[in-house]
């Protein structure tokens, strides 16, 4: 394959890694490192490459500005980006987390097989569609009082469980236990509260979804067994985030950070990288508000889980025990966290930003719950609605090379308009149905925009992180029923 040329310097250092050497653009403090093979490099946009280099210019960045194989152009930070900052000299950037704070994915296992629910699929999809609000302008079933909303943002999934949405057992199966401490309700704007009030327990739109899937292939029998997975088993995947609440928090703080960069005399190559020193009041307020939005998202995925369980129970007429629809894990893929990592042989606390990247901690990491201590952290990677999704495990190499991070999804290759054009004269619903996948969506063009061809093949992306050793494949899941906004 001929080497791809870019206007800034990028060198392939091994089959899975492309390096943007320090100096490729002015003021880079570290190298840029992109985990990508030659095959996926065909999709790599010049602008995304530049964004990885831009992030390398930020104050206090440590080791490298990293990107995953699902990289594509974002705002300021590339989607698929990981950047860690020194706690004294570094910065916090809302753009390094994104508008959809704690957008994330969770996966539930069941006691059912594909054959058990074949004849119920249509009822299940309909029932979930009507019980989990989705789409543009949709209203949630929960009307939160001001007091409730404060409880949501300070307690996260714990609030949901206390309100009867799911079990206490679920909490140990969520990154950070489904709650980040230190969310101050006083920091949040009225606008964020207003946007959030009616949207708790809603799926949203765009690439967010709820899927009924089955385990199609197992790569690691032992790990799959320990996670309660088996071939042909039914699983449920939920992909959504902090909805309007988180979008408003990010909007509010990008404006605040624009004032902060003047105050702290920070020079940026792109205004969307607006940031503030970690110790500044602006950064502290942002982190507190970000935690509130992260908690809102965990509560959201927890409420949706509860209604999904209700739908299964009512359609199949089973007991919860028979159904066994239990949470395997829930991961955030848009978040900033303080974590301990080894840099130049020394333990250091760092502010790790993951923007479209998933935490992938190795076995025995202190932040893992007991159930996953020996295995490592489950990583959930959703693909497009027609192909597949994956369950992986975090690894020691991720800890050493990527601040304990891996990819988060497939990433688009076609714009919405291109996808709609390509879908002209076709029925995406019928094509999906011919493949044995039932879909239900709220938006007029959603199915065309979200069709498989609009995305990279998730298997290619996952193969890169697996081969590079920054996570390990456990199982592949295939869709049977899809609910979209």
């Amino acid at each position, binding site marked *: 394959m001929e080497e791809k040329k870019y206007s800034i310097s990028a060198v392939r250092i091994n089959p899975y890694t492309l390096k943007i050497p320090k100096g490729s653009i002015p003021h880079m403090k570290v190298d840029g490192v992109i985990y990508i093979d030659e095959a996926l490099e065909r999709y790599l946009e010049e602008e995304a490459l530049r964004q990885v280099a831009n992030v390398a210019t930020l104050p206090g960045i440590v080791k490298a500005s990293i990107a995953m194989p699902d990289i594509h152009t974002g705002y300021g930070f590339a989607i698929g980006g990981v950047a860690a900052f020194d706690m004294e000299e570094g910065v916090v950037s809302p753009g390094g987390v994104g508008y*959809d704070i704690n957008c994330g994915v969770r996966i539930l296992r069941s006691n059912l097989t594909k054959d058990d629910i074949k004849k119920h699929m249509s009822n299940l999809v309909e029932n979930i569609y009507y019980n989990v609000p989705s789409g543009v*302008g949709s209203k949630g079933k929960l009307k939160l009082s001001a007091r409730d909303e404060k409880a949501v943002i300070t307690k996260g999934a714990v609030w949901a469980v206390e309100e009867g949405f799911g079990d206490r057992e679920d909490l140990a199966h969520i990154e950070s236990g489904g709650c980040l401490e230190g969310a101050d309700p006083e920091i949040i704007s009225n*606008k964020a509260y207003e946007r959030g009030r009616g949207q708790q327990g809603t799926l949203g739109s765009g690439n967010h979804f709820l899927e009924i899937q089955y385990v199609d292939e197992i790569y690691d029998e032992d790990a799959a067994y320990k996670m309660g997975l088996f071939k042909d088993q039914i699983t449920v995947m939920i992909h959504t985030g902090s909805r309007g609440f988180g979008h408003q928090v990010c909007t509010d703080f990008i*404006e605040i950070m624009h004032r902060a960069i003047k105050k702290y005399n920070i020079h940026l190559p792109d205004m969307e990288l607006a940031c503030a020193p970690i110790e500044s009041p602006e950064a502290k307020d942002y982190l507190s508000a970000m935690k509130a939005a992260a908690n809102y998202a965990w509560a959201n995925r927890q409420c949706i889980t509860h209604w999904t369980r209700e739908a299964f129970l009512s359609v199949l007429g089973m007991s919860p025990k028979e159904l066994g629809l239990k949470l395997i894990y829930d991961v955030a893929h848009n978040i900033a966290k303080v974590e301990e990592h080894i840099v130049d042989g020394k333990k250091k606390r760092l502010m790790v930003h993951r923007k479209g990247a998933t935490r992938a901690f190795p076995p025995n990491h202190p932040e893992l719950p007991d159930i996953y201590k020996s295995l490592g952290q489950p990583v959930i990677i959703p693909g497009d609605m027609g192909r597949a999704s994956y369950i992986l495990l975090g690894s020691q190499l991720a800890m050493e090379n990527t601040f304990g991070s891996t990819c988060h999804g497939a990433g688009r290759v076609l*714009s*919405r308009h291109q996808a709609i054009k390509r879908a002209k004269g076709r029925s995406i619903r019928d094509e999906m149905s011919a493949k044995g996948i039932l879909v239900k969506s*709220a938006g007029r063009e959603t199915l065309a925009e979200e069709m498989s061809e609009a995305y990279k093949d998730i298997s290619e992306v996952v193969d890169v992180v697996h081969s590079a050793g920054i996570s390990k494949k456990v199982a592949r899941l295939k869709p049977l029923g899809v609910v979209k906004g």
Partner: protein
Amino acid sequence: MLPKRYDFFETTGDVGILVYGRSLNELFQNGGLGLFDIITDVKEIIEIEKDVELKCDSLERLFINWLNELIFLFDAEGFVARKINVNVSQKNEIFSLDAKLMGYYFDEERDEKKLLIKAATYHGFYLKENAEGFETKVLFDI
């Protein structure tokens, strides 16, 4: 014939607008109308009126804040504007915007669901004067 108000453009993941205006007021008005055109097929309904007032020390940031204000009104209240009148003024270093919005509340059963906009971003953003008046380019996070 009225001059063109706005064009849409796309990146792989998102959607944006190129907005034109013979005056600053028209630029802000057209930006607002273009935004609602991304969210839904705006209907010929005027039932509700809303006032928006904003202040900012930069015209560029005022424009982004204006769009984010409209995103807020849709997302929090379901408000869709059919008609927008804007008056932008400058006193010393401060730009002020006074707007009257006329429209209706989105009805999930009745109205077309197009795209959900999370926010107006600064990515590739510009606002400039040209021979015909003003032009701006804004990318939305979808």
